[in-house]
Structures are given as C-alpha cells and as structure tokens.
C-alpha cells in the first residue's frame, strides 16, 4: 500500500521535497531568462506605460496582486503536499497533475458558497474585517524588491514602511474577532493582537540591527549592499542569532505553529475566522499566505542577500530563498506542538526582547568601532 511506501523515516522524502523546491525555482528561472524569449516585442507596450505614470502604477499594482493571488494558491497546494508527505500520506492527488489544481477548485467552491453573516454579528465590521487584513498584507509586498528592477515602489524607508503596515493587519483580526459575535472569535482576536504587538518589538529591533549595519532603510539598498557577501556570512556573530530571533518572530507574526494560537483549532475551533465562510474566508486565507511570502521574503532580503546569487537570474534566487524559508515554516508547523499563551508571552518578553536588545547594542558597538 502507498502508506507503507511513504514512510517518514526514509531519507528519500526530504530529498524529494528539496528536489521539488529546486525544480520550481528552475522553472521560474527559465521563465525570467530574458534573452531566450522575444521580450523586445513588448517594448512598445512598455513605452506606452512609461509615458503614463498613473496607468503604469495601476498596472504594477494589478500585476502584483494577481501574482500574489496565484502564488498563494500554489503555496496552499505546496503546504498541503508537504503536510501530506510529512504525515505519510499523499496530500491532494485528484485535481490536475498531483493535485496541483486542487486549490483552484477550492477557490471556486468558496466563491460559489452561500455568504453567511451570523444574525447577531456586527455587520459592517464583519464585512470590513477580511479587507483590513488583506490590504496590509498586499501593501507590504509593494516595497519588497523581487529583483533589481522588479519592485512595486522603491521607497527609501522601505523597512519602516513594511513593518508599520504589516502591524495594522492586527486591527482587521481584532475586528473579525469582535464583529463575528462569537466567543471563540473574541478569544482568537485578543490572542492575535497580544501576540502581534509583543513579537513586533524583537522583530523591529532585529531589523534595526540590519539597518544599522547597512546604513540604509531602503530594502533595495539593503540588498545591493550585500553584493558578494550575504549578511549572515558577513556578520555571522550578529546575524545568525539575529536571523533565528527574526524567524521566531516571523512565525508568530504570521500565526504559524508553534505560535498559531489565534486560530488554535483544538482550543478555539478556528479562532478569529470561526464564523467566516465562502469568499471572506478565502480572503483571510490568501492574506495569511501573502503574509507568509512577505515575512519569508523580508528575511531573505535582510539576511540571505535577497536576489544575489550565482548563475541563476535575480528573481529566481529571490524566489528560491523565499520558498525555502516558507518550506522551513511549514516544516516547523507540521512538527511542533502549540505553545500556551502565557508561555508564548514569556518566551517573547523574557528571552527574545532582551536578546534582541543586546544584539542591537552589540551591532551599534560594532559599527562605531
């Protein structure tokens, strides 16, 4: 039986997963390998857009959002496949090749579902909440440099912008929790806000370390100044603990196990999105994965040299690094149990905050020296 074949003890599983990631990156690389495709045919269109800045920005925004939506669908499939492999089962197999179209089918199903709003819900808030979560998730991607040329908005305060915008997502989660008029949702919403605000502090401190080292807040500049040596290689004593703290905070920021308390299934049913169904639920889901992409991409930019890398084009390197970090998140999620709220808080305030403060002081000292 297939159950027997897919034994988790076999090393071939891990190899298969890694090969999958590499193949995905290679496909992306092939797509972006400029000389192979007749890109010059697009020049008149490009010129047309460059002459009209407003239209140009609009086109960029549409592209970014649709790219993210498709990537989220892919990531959901990837997560389900990884979960399946880790759990000695196959994951989605029926829709498309190896179930690759499963999430598209799910999305269509969600779109067609009846739109239910609980009778006693705070209706405006209930309707608004998914977008309050979705919009910040998309906005953060705006400043993320996918490659030297491919960046929505090359803002000179990119790091600050990304951090501040990503925090506002908590507002939407609180609105969802409160608006649904469900006790589990309220508990989930409260947990989400407490968690986000706490873990924001060490995260910001670690970002500040990188900013101090590279002397710029622009994400593009941070990547450019890592040419040749990634941060984690250039400053291993500061950046390896920094990356670890950042990764822990990132897990908490995107509500992933072991920090998935706001939607802890076994305790709070589904936490803040218990009452959501249909497209509103799908929007929460997409926002969650967009946040994943953002935090993984952010980590790749801060510590792993963003788009820098040999042979492959920049976009491929960036995507490969992001995908590997997302894979790491998924791996952690499907392995570890969940922390309790007070344990999670004490982990943040008693360990991560002091550690990141010390790290920041050391970074400042090393720069002054």
């Amino acid at each position: 039986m297939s159950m027997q074949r897919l034994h988790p003890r076999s090393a071939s599983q891990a190899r298969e997963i890694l090969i999958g990631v590499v193949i995905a990156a290679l496909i992306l690389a092939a797509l972006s390998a400029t000389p192979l495709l007749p890109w010059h045919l697009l020049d008149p269109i490009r010129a047309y857009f460059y002459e009209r800045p407003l239209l140009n920005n609009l086109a960029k925004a549409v592209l970014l959002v649709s790219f993210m939506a498709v990537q989220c669908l892919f990531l959901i499939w990837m997560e389900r496949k990884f979960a399946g492999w880790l759990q000695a089962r196959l994951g989605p197999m029926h829709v498309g090749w190896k179930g690759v179209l499963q999430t598209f089918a799910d999305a269509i199903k969600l779109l067609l579902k009846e739109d239910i709003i609980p009778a006693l819900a705070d209706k405006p808030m209930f309707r608004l909440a998914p977008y309050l979560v979705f919009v910040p998730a998309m906005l953060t991607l705006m400043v993320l440099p996918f490659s030297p040329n491919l960046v929505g908005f090359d803002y000179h305060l990119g790091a600050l912008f990304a951090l501040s915008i990503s925090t506002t997502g908590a507002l939407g989660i609180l609105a969802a929790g409160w608006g649904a008029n469900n006790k589990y949702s309220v508990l989930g919403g409260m947990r989400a806000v407490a968690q986000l605000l706490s873990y924001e502090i060490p995260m910001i401190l670690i970002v500040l370390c990188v900013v101090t080292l590279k002397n710029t807040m622009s994400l593009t500049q941070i990547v450019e100044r890592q040419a040749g040596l990634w941060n984690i290689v250039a400053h291993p004593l500061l950046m390896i603990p920094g990356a670890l703290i950042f990764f822990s905070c990132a897990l908490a920021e995107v509500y992933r196990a072991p920090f998935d308390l706001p939607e802890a299934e076994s305790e709070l049913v589904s936490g803040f999105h218990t009452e959501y169904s249909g497209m509103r639920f799908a929007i929460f889901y997409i926002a969650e994965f967009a946040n994943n992409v953002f935090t993984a991409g952010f980590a790749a930019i801060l510590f792993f040299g963003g788009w820098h890398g040999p042979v492959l084009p920049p976009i491929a390197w960036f995507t490969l690094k992001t995908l590997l970090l997302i894979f790491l998140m998924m791996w952690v999620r499907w392995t570890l149990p969940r922390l309790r709220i007070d344990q999670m808080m004490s982990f943040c305030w008693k360990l991560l905050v002091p550690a990141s403060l010390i790290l920041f002081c050391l970074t400042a000292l090393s720069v002054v020296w």
Partner: protein
Amino acid sequence: MTLTTTEITSPGMTLNMGPQHPSTHGVLRLVVELDGEIIQSCRPVIGYLHRGLEKMMEARPYRHNVPFTDRLDYLASLNSNLAIAQAIERIGNVTVPERGQYLRVLLCEINRLASHLVFLGTFATDLGATTVFLYSFRERERILDLLEAMTGARLTYNWIRAGGVPTDLPEGFGERLTAFLDEFQFALDEYDRLLTGNRIFRARCEGIGVISREMAVAYGASGPVARGSGIAYDIRKVAPYDVYDRMEFDVPVYTEGDCMARYRVRVEEMRQSARIIRQCLREMPEGETMAKLPKIFKPPPGEAYSRTESPRGELSCYLSSDGSMNPTRVHFRAPSFFHLGLLPAMLPGVKVADVIAILGSLDTVLGEVDR
C-alpha cells in the same frame, strides 16, 4: 492631592465548549466560566450520547447483550465485551477453556494498543502536533487489519462472548502479529522521542492538571489516571482474571499526577501490552476456545460483579438474575465517568488551552460515560 483607585471589574464570560467542539472527544459539553483566558469554574454536561443501553439489556437474553457493549467504549470494544462476558460467566458458573482465556487476554491487549494509539494521536493533536495523529493512526490501522482478520469487524468486534471466544486464530495470525509488534516497538520509541523530547510538549504537559494521590482516590480514578498519580492499582495485578496471573508484565506508575505522567503511563503500558501479547502467542496451549453453554441459558437467581482493566481504567459490570432468561439489572462502572468528575475540581485556575490538554490526558470516551 489624593489618588483614588477604583477596581474595574467586568463580568466573566460563559463559554460552552462542546458538544460540537473539535477537542471534546465526542459529545461532551463543558460549561466554563472564563475571566479572560483563565477558567473560573467548569461544569461538565453529559448525556448527549445516552441510548439507554443498560435498560435495553434487561429486555434481552444474557448472551444477546454482548453486542451492546461494543457501543460502550468504542475504542476498546473487546475490553467492554470482556466485562459483560465475565459477569455472565460468573452468574452462570461457566468456566472458560484455557485457550479461550489466552485468546481473550491476547485480544484485549491488542485492543488496548489500538486504544492507547488513539490517545497518543488525539492528545498530540489537542496540543497542536497534528502529525503524530496520522502516525499513530497508521499503526492503529495495522492493528485494525489484524483484528479484522480475527473477528471480521474493525470497530465493534463482539468477539469476546460468554463462554470464551467463538473461533480460533486465523491462519498466519501469529506471524503477522509478531511482525507488526517488531515494527511497532521501533515506531513507538520514535513517537515517544518525538513528543517526550520536545520542549514545547513538556512545557504544555508538565505540572498541568495535577491530580494528587488523595484526590485520585477520593474521586474514584482508576487505570492510567490513577497510576499517573502514584497509585499502583491495576486490576490485572490486584484481582487477576483469565490468565493474567501467568503473565509477566510491569505496572508503570508515575507519581507526578500531571498530564505528562498520564501520557507516560500510557506509552509504557503499550510496551507492556506488547510484552503480554508475545507471551500469549508463545505460551498459548491447544484446545477448545469456547465453553459449551446451554441453548436456553437461565442462570440461578443471584448477582455477579466482574472487574476488568480496560484501557481507560476499571471497567466493571454488575448483573442480577431472578432465574429467568433475561437479567433484571445490568450496570457498568465506566471509568471515564469518574474521570470526568475530576474536571470541576481540576480546571479552576488553568488556561483555556490547558482544558484541552487535561481533557485529552484523561482520555475519556463518551460512549462509555453516557451508555
């Protein structure tokens, strides 16, 4: 200038956990009063699965009642079968042939493995480690395959009957079982390492839901719950039935009384069950498996009480007879019922997340509670 302080109080929140909640393991409803995330009080509400099984049994001949017991503790129905089968044998003075006794012990221990595997998986899932659930269910699947080969059923076996066991082992069963046990012990060690060595798992279990020795005695706890609180009490040792007195096995006891202790007791019990199964396979004599019972079974007037060690604790059955074909009263002492009674005493002061951990560590089955 004086500073006045007023204490802000807000009314607590009443939260209904269940009967439709992913972690109440069946249809249990817990009415908990919350102050933020801290439990103020808890009231378990049971009865959603009440089918009146005990009353139904009064209207049927003794031997027809065995299938009902499958629906008591549906995770270990062979152990429930055993409770009523023993009571019927006692009231009717029936002696089970030796091979039948060995087969019973064998089947009960296999079923104990399956039941504890469900515990392992659901407990880990309750704490957020969903992957362990699928691993333990994979092993359980192989046990179910074995039991299916033996009994023809995968959940409600109805295979331990008054007088013994209706058939002998199918061909090649012993080899399959041994092969499974060899792999299972390796797998169990691995799952144990995966959880026991995990700091988050330990943080969620150690010192949580402590049941003191005195409390366990006062509330009538039995089985792994009592043994996790330092009470070395196992019916298989205290009042051995069938051939348990010939078996060599240890009763794991941990004194901490917390969720971790109960978890460890069950993991260790799985190892001991494997030991018992191997001994059964090795020492089982040839012979009949079932005693001959009269077609019309009318036990003399009187009462009988059987005590067995089910995976959940002390499962007993009381029967009374007036000399007719049907029992006049059937009653089960369901261990889960007593363990649920511990909840109102244990829960005040803990967090919502701990409720799930504690409930999971008690490993209750509602089919047995509600009957």
